[in-house]
C-alpha cells in the first residue's frame, strides 16, 4: 500500500512518456491525482513497510494529505491550462509533474534521513524543468538560479544529514531511521547534532525559501506557470518544512531544543522582515506572491520556534497557507494570461476583465494576510497567542508589525491590479473558464471551512501531531 502510493505516479509518468497524444496527458494527470487522493485517504497513521523505511506518522500524513488535495486541484486546473497552451508539447511537463508527485509523496512517508534527502532532491530536479516550461530567456534564468541555489541547499542538507548520522554512529547505534534516532536520542553526540541542525536548517531552509537563501523564489515563481507556483508554494515548501520538523524533533530529543528554537525564531523573523521589505512597492504581482511565500515559510518556522500553542497554530497554518496559495497563484496565472503581462503598470481592472479570477485574487489576498473569516486568521492568531503565552513578547510584537507592513505593501499591489479599467490594447482574449476557476472555488471553500469551523477529527489529529512534534511519543 505504501509503496503503491509512491510508485503509482511514477507508472503514470511512464505512461505519459510513451503516450503519443498531447491531448490525453492532462486528463491522465488528473486521473492519477484522484487515485492518489483516494489512496491517501485509505492510509492510516501507524501503517509501515516491513523494513520501516516508509511509514505513515501524523506529521507526514498531514503534509501528504495537503499535498494530495493540492495536487488534485492543480491537475484539474492543468486540464484547462494545457488546453490554452496546446501550441507546445506537454510531454516533459506531464512527466515531471507526475515524478514530482511521486517524489514528494516519498518525502512525506520516508522514515530514513538519507532516503528523505534522496526524495527531496528528486522532487527538486523534477521541478526545474517545470519552471522552464515557457522556454524563454527569463524562465531559463529562473531555472538555472533555482538549480544552482537549490543544489547548494541540498548539498548542505546532505552534509547535515551525515553529521546527524555521525552523531548516531558515535552513540553506538549508527542508524538513520527516525525511530532509532529518537529512541537513542539521549546518547547522540551533541556537538554533531548542533552542527548538523544548523546545516539542515540552512539546507532545507533553502528549499523552503527562508531568508537569506530565498533568492531563487521570486525568479522561479515569477516565471513558472501559475499552477507550478502553487505546487511549489504549497507542496515543495511544505515537504521541506516537514523535513525541518523531523530534524527539530530529533534535535530537541537530543537535548538541544533551546538552541534549535532560538535559531528557528531568528530565521523566521528574518524571513518575514525580508518579505516585508521586498513586498513594499513590488511591481510584479507574481514576484509579490513569491515574497508572500517567503513570509509564510517564516511564520511556520517561527511558530515551531516559539513552541507551546503556536505549534498547533503552525500545523493549521500549513493547511491554510497551501490552500490559500492555490487561489492566489491560479488567479494570478489567469490574470497574467489575460493581459500578457504581470507588471502592475500594464495590468489594471482585472475584476472587470476576469470577474471570477479578479475577485478571487482579491479574496485570496484578504485571506493570506490574515483577515477573518478565513483560515489563516485563525492560525496566525493561534501562533501569536502561543508567542505571548511562552513569553516571546519581542517576537510577538515584531510578528504583528511585519504582518501589518506586509498587509499594506501587498494591498497596494493587489488593489492596483484588481481596480481601475482595463486598457483595450492589453487584451489577449483569454477569459475565465470552468476548469480554470473551479479548483479555486474548492480551495476557497476549504480556506473558509478552516476559518469558521474546523472539523473535530481534524482538530484532534492536529493536536496529536503537535504533541508528537513537542516530544510526546
Amino acid at each position: 500500500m505504501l509503496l503503491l502510493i509512491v510508485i503509482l505516479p511514477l507508472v503514470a509518468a511512464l505512461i505519459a512518456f510513451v503516450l503519443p497524444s498531447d491531448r490525453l496527458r492532462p486528463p491522465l494527470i488528473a486521473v492519477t491525482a484522484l487515485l492518489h487522493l483516494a489512496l491517501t485517504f485509505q492510509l492510516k497513521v501507524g501503517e509501515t513497510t516491513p523494513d520501516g523505511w516508509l511509514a505513515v506518522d501524523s506529521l507526514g500524513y498531514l503534509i501528504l494529505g495537503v499535498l494530495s488535495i493540492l495536487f488534485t486541484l492543480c491537475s484539474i486546473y492543468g486540464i484547462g491550462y494545457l488546453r490554452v497552451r496546446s501550441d507546445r508539447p506537454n510531454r516533459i511537463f506531464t512527466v515531471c509533474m507526475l515524478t514530482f508527485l511521486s517524489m514528494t509523496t516519498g518525502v512525506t512517508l520516508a522514515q530514513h534521513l538519507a532516503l528523505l534527502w534522496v526524495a527531496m532532491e528528486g522532487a527538486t530536479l523534477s521541478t526545474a524543468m517545470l519552471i522552464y516550461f515557457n522556454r524563454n530567456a527569463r524562465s531559463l534564468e529562473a531555472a538555472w538560479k533555482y538549480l544552482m541555489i537549490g543544489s547548494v541547499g541540498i548539498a548542505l542538507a546532505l552534509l547535515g544529514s551525515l553529521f546527524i548520522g555521525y552523531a548516531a554512529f558515535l552513540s553506538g547505534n549508527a542508524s538513520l531511521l527516525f525511530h532509532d534516532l529518537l529512541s537513542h536520542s539521549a546518547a547522540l553526540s551533541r556537538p554533531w547534532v548542533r552542527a548538523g541542525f544548523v546545516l539542515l536548517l540552512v539546507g532545507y531552509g533553502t528549499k523552503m525559501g527562508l531568508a537569506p537563501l530565498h533568492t531563487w523564489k521570486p525568479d522561479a515563481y515569477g516565471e513558472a506557470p501559475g499552477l507550478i507556483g502553487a505546487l511549489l508554494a504549497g507542496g515543495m515548501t511544505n515537504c521541506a518544512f516537514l523535513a525541518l520538523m523531523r530534524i527539530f524533533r530529533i534535535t530537541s530529543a537530543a537535548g538541544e531544543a533551546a538552541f534549535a528554537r532560538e535559531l528557528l525564531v531568528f530565521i523566521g523573523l528574518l524571513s518575514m522582515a525580508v518579505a516585508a521589505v521586498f513586498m513594499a512597492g513590488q511591481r510584479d504581482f507574481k514576484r509579490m506572491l513569491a515574497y508572500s511565500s517567503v513570509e509564510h515559510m517564516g511564520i511556520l518556522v517561527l511558530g515551531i520556534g516559539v513552541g507551546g500553542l503556536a505549534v498547533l497554530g503552525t500545523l493549521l497554518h500549513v493547511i491554510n497557507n497551501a490552500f490559500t496559495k492555490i487561489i492566489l497563484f491560479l488567479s494570478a496565472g489567469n490574470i497574467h494570461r489575460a493581459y500578457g503581462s504581470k507588471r502592475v503598470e500594464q495590468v489594471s481592472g482585472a475584476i472587470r476583465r476576469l470577474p471570477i479570477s479578479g475577485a478571487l485574487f482579491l479574496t485570496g489576498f484578504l485571506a493570506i494576510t490574515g483577515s477573518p473569516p478565513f483560515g489563516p486568521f485563525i492560525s496566525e492568531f493561534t501562533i501569536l497567542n502561543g508567542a505571548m503565552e511562552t513569553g516571546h513578547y519581542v517576537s510577538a510584537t515584531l510578528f504583528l508589525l511585519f504582518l501589518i507592513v506586509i498587509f499594506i505593501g501587498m494591498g497596494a499591489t493587489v488593489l492596483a491590479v484588481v481596480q481601475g479599467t482595463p486598457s483595450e490594447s492589453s487584451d489577449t482574449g483569454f477569459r475565465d473558464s470552468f476548469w480554470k476557476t473551479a479548483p479555486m472555488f474548492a480551495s476557497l471553500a476549504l480556506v473558509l471551512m478552516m476559518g469558521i469551523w474546523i472539523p473535530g477529527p481534524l482538530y484532534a489529529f492536529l493536536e496529536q501531531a503537535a504533541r508528537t512534534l513537542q516530544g510526546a511519543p
Partner: protein
Amino acid sequence: MTQTVPTILILSVIMNFLVLGSSNLKSLIRNVAIQGLLMSVFSLAFAHTPSFRLVLLVLASATIKGFLIPSTLFRALREVHIRHEAEPYLGLVPSVLLCAVGTGLALLFAGNLPLASEHRGLLVVPTALSTFLTGFLLLTTRRKAISQVVGYLTLENGIFVFAQLLHESMPFLVEVGVLLDLVVGIFVMGIVMNHIQREFSSLDTERLSELRD
C-alpha cells in the same frame, strides 16, 4: 595504511587549491576529475577490507566523476567556442587565499568535534569541510555556467569524503540513490546549460541578470 589515508586527503586538499586557482576551464575540469578519482582511491584505502558493494560503488563513482561528467563538460566546452579563461567575479588569488583561511578554520572546527577512536588523526573532517567550501566558492564567485557545475561536483566530493565515515552503516540503496541524484542533477544542469548556450550564445551567467528587484 595509517599513512596512505592522510596522504591522499592532503593531496585532495591540494587539489582544492588547484581547482580554485585554475585560470582556464580545461584545467578546471581536469583538476576536479583528478580530485574525483582521488576520492575513490581514498574510499578504498579507508575501508579496512573493501567489501564487494564498496568496490562496486567506487567503480561507479570513479567512472561518473572521473570520466563521464568531465568528458561531457569537455564536449560542452568544445561545442560552445567560448573563451576558455575562467573569468571569475572574485580574482583567482583572493579565492585561493579565502580557501586557505577556510581550510584553517575547518581544521579548528573539526578539532572541536568528537571523533570515534578509529577516525582520529586521519584529517577526514577537515578535508570534507575544506572541499565543501571550495565548491561553495566556485558556485558563488564564478561567471561561467561550467565552473558552477564544477563547483557542484566539488561540493559533492566534499560530502563523499565525509560519507565514507558512515559507509558501513549506510544502506546500499541510499548510496546508490545519492549517486543517482548526482548524475540526474548534472544531467538536468547540462540540459539547462545547453539551452542557455542556444538562447544567449554564451555560457556566461552574467547574461542571466534580467530578473531582479
